[in-house]
């Protein structure tokens, strides 16, 4: 779901929602209708409301907030997840591994040291909402070709061997890396083509090898 919908959900909760172009026929404007029609948006609104109630200590016993099991499970998963990303295929010392972990964090990921309540809310919100930008089509500018096989994400099994760069630098470097991978694919295809042309030229010299298309 979009950030705008989230913003609208938040605004609605705080009574800051601007119901500008509503009229008799359309009692709700388009944004509000979208919010009300969207199941995900309603879920977000519900959670925002719940967070607010928790903060104001208004929660009653009837609300399903026993998330301790989920939190525990989530916490149990965290260190494993971090380890499984950095594959032992590249020799990496402790510092390198930490650097790699920083490199691999998608932009905007949140520190795990946050309070239990925050972790719980995040663990509810995250699935399916944000996807990693591992599609080169989305992260590279429009280019002559998008080679059929050249779609490898740059984001896995990466080990950085120097101090961690900033997020902007990482994005720029990802793009640069991606451009090398794409160029390699393009060159492969051109090389295949060049090979075919050579064969064709050879065939033209030798009339017995004549091709009938």
């Amino acid at each position, binding site marked *: 779901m979009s950030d705008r919908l989230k913003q609208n959900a938040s605004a609605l909760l705080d009574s800051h929602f601007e119901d500008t172009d509503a009229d008799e026929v359309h009692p709700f404007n388009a944004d509000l209708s979208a919010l009300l029609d969207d199941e995900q948006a309603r879920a977000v609104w519900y959670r925002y409301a719940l967070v607010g109630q928790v903060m104001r200590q208004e929660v009653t016993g009837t609300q399903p907030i026993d998330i301790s099991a989920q939190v525990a499970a989530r916490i149990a998963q965290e260190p494993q997840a971090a380890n499984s990303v950095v594959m032992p*295929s590249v020799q990496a010392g402790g510092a390198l591994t930490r650097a790699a972990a920083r490199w691999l964090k998608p932009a905007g990921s949140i520190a795990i040291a946050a309070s239990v309540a925050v972790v719980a809310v995040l663990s509810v919100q995250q699935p399916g909402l944000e996807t990693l930008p591992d599609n080169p089509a989305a992260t590279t500018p429009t280019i002559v070709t998008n080679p059929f*096989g050249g779609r490898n994400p740059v984001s*896995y099994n990466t080990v950085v061997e120097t101090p961690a760069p900033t997020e902007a630098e990482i994005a720029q470097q990802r793009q640069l890396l991606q451009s*090398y991978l794409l160029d390699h694919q393009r*060159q492969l295809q051109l090389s295949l083509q060049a090979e075919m042309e050579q064969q064709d030229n050879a065939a033209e010299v030798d009339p017995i090898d004549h091709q009938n298309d």
Partner: protein
Amino acid sequence: MALALRQLNFKATLVQSQGQRIQPLIWFHGRYDHDTDLELLIQLNGADSRALRIGDQTYYYSPVGGSYSLQTNVTAGFIPPAFYEPFAHISQHYQVIASGGMRVTGRPAQYLRLVSRDKFRYHYDLWVDRESAMLLKLQMMTPQGEVLEQLQLTSIEFTDHIPAQLTELEAIQRPPRLYEASQLEAPHFNLRPNWLPEGFELRRAQHRRLYDTQLPTDHYLFSDGLTDVSIYITERRQQGLPELAFQGAESLINTSIDGFAVTVVGKLPVATLHQIAERMVLDSQGPMR
């Protein structure tokens, strides 16, 4: 298998996976006449990318990256072109071992292993249909056995005649041909590759500006018949990438040597790419392999 990939009429569905990415595809193939086979591949996830091949003309259609065509008799980026040729062509560097049978895609299959004769290359496992010799499954893995890339047919239907989807192609628009940059220049920099694993031969060597970044770059492409590797050389201060390495279906390392940034890309273990970079030489001393 090479013959089956050229001659059979079939409609198949398959999934292709690289790391954590997975792409389902539909694959039509048919034989038009003695010389010409037709092939259509459709990606089912994400952008509707298609590859159509008519004999040695290949057309790539993509709503995101632009469409283009090439003169090649295999679809690039799908099954390695070497598998369309007899294994004898690559047997100097890969040992082919038939090791038993297995059920794959619901059919009895022969299991073949292509084991690199040295530690510099990835290995391949192939499962080939016993009845038709059609490729049913393929995986590429590191010398340690970690699977990096897989292709698995999930259904296949053989037909007597060419699939109907391949018979109505006349009206389809043909995208523009992808040509070489018009002015090809020889490499500029005096740092050059001096060592590659046994059997890799130089395919291309040129100096140009990389399309996406406009960095002036020397580029070398080598191939051992199954695997290709690219070496990019740029002035270090212009590129600014940290030293890094990642191993995957397509590995990549970036390192700096004598004021040059060297980037090596290919379906090879990271250790091999490092060796290629480390053993490069300055000046024109030492003959090129």
